[in-house]
């Protein structure tokens, strides 16, 4: 394990932020700490980096207990949501900072920084100041700066949170490819379930200061441990007292075993998919179907359809 956090407790004043949190991050993985804001994910990341001291619990990095070690000596790379660029230094000097601290020879620093500039596609920007870069460029600079010291683990706190949607999407894909190339154990914090599913190979869902579930994106999406995880990771609807993913609902014209009768209330076309809003008895539900199916069934407001969870649907009883 690259990182092990064991039984971490942390409170700010009277507010408990982390309650007996234990997380394991395998070497070389790209792990997402996913959860709503205030769920404790950033605090956990900062505890791992040594920027926050836990009230109790142990942090191990590469097997060594670092709980009482200063952030300077943990050999972690940390990337902040708002870049934390050294604004009085050029891009080159920002990236070189950690190497200069380590008193590496000048020519080695020069070579390494230029490698990194190339890696993050900022080669032409070496002499610029952070204020002259876009948000996405600044964050890539921050990433290169963190990678420069060859950290044991790379920690990213909502790295794309301050960027606009388009840039965020591009950087996500880029981070994924970068990780495939560099293979440094990476943990990133996000509140965006789509981002976590797309980028991470392991997701740890944190809410209310506790770990709700951890596993591969596939596992947490398809086998959510509880209602919270199921709701947080994707759209859900309620069918006969059970939570179902809307795309797992089967619609038929004729009754089938286990199906219930529903009245179509609204049909919304969203490009390739169709959202069908229905009334089942005294409950509302909705299903996500393909255009082909919607046309075959001639779905229209007022029509009657029969619904049931599909054969492979994962459902969860509503508590």
């Amino acid at each position, binding site marked *: 394990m690259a990182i092990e956090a064991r039984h971490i407790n942390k409170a700010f004043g009277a507010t408990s932020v982390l309650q007996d949190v234990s997380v394991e991050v395998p070497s070389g993985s790209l792990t997402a700490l996913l959860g709503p804001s205030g769920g404790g994910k950033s605090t956990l990341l900062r505890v791992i*980096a*040594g*920027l926050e001291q836990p009230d109790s619990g142990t942090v191990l990095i590469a097997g060594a207990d670092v709980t009482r070690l*200063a*952030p*300077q*000596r*943990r050999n*972690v*790379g*940390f990337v*902040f949501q*708002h*870049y*934390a*660029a*050294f*604004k*009085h*230094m*050029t891009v080159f*000097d920002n990236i070189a*900072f*950690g190497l200069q*601290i*380590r008193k590496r020879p000048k020519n080695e620093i020069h070579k390494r920084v230029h*490698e990194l500039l*190339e*890696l993050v*596609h900022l080669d*032409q*920007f070496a002499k*610029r*100041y952070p204020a*002259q*870069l*876009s948000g*996405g*460029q600044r964050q*890539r600079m*921050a990433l290169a*700066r*963190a990678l*420069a*010291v060859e950290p044991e683990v790379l920690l990213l706190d909502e790295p794309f949170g301050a960027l606009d949607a*388009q*840039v965020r999407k*591009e*950087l996500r*894909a*880029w981070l994924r*490819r*970068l990780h495939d*190339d*560099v293979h440094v154990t990476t943990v990133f914090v996000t509140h965006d379930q789509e981002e976590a599913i797309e980028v991470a190979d392991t997701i740890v869902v944190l809410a209310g200061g506790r770990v709700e579930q951890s596993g591969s994106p596939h596992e947490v999406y398809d086998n959510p441990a509880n209602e919270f995880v199921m709701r947080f990771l994707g759209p859900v609807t309620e069918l006969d007292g059970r939570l179902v993913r809307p795309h797992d609902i089967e619609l038929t014209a004729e009754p089938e075993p286990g199906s219930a009768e529903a009245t179509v209330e609204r049909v919304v076309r969203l490009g390739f998919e169709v959202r069908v809003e229905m009334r089942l008895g005294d409950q509302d539900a909705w299903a996500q179907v393909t255009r082909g199916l919607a046309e075959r069934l001639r779905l229209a407001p007022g029509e009657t359809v029969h619904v049931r969870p599909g054969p492979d649907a994962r459902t969860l009883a509503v508590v």
Partner: protein
Amino acid sequence: MTSKILETDSTGLGTPPGPVRPVARRRPPGAPTALGLGSAMIFLSLIVLIPLAAVLWKSAEHGPGFFWKSVTTPDAWAALKLTVVASIIVALINLVMGTLIAWVLVRDSFPGKAVLDTLIDLPFALPTIVAGLVLLELYGADSPLGINLAYTRVGVAVALLFVTLPFVVRTVQPVLLELDRDMEQAAASLGAGNWTIFRRIILPNLLPAMVSGTALAFTRSIAEFGSTVLISGNLPFKTQVAAVQIFGQIENDNTASAAAVSTALLVVAFVVLVTLDLVQRWGSRRG
């Protein structure tokens, strides 16, 4: 280590080098700017430029020879020297202590912090002659603290320190408040110790404010009259500062000499302000 280049490009990946700064947007031509500029210039002229020009004019009235003689009379020269040297020392002490006080006010929390924060401005509010009186009571011959600084150069420096304290504190404090703490944490996680973080991250960001606060303290200090007049005892060649010497010249109806010494002070202040400005520009160009 290689990585594929993105096809889409809104992140600027692969953007060719070129000017980044957008061309400064031109203000729509019209009355508001002209009105603002005009008012500012008239005000500045009436309040600052014309009086200063009058002083220069007065000092040049009897030609350069007279000017030179006026500023190099033994007592004028001694007063100027004392004033400039004391002001440099005071400005440097202010630089260190003012930055320290600003640091404590921003970064530390302790009972009475709000009170202390308010106290900082009091030297500005107190008439300087009152400040001089209080200092004489406290650090004079009958000092309850047993420290007698009356009629000494140290006494002069203490008076100058008192009146110029707020400058560095009040210029550094807001910059320190705005300083991004994440930068320090980023430096720490990159392995920088506290001293390195201070020297390489905090100090470069504070320096412009520290320099301008120090410049203000210095220029205020060379012109100080009220607070020094009592505690210094006005001993020519020993504790008489330039402002007091000028006052003496005016009382003796020797206004041309007074103007000459004033001009010398103005020149010193001007040179210091310009030098510090150049140093700062040079510094900010280097980053």
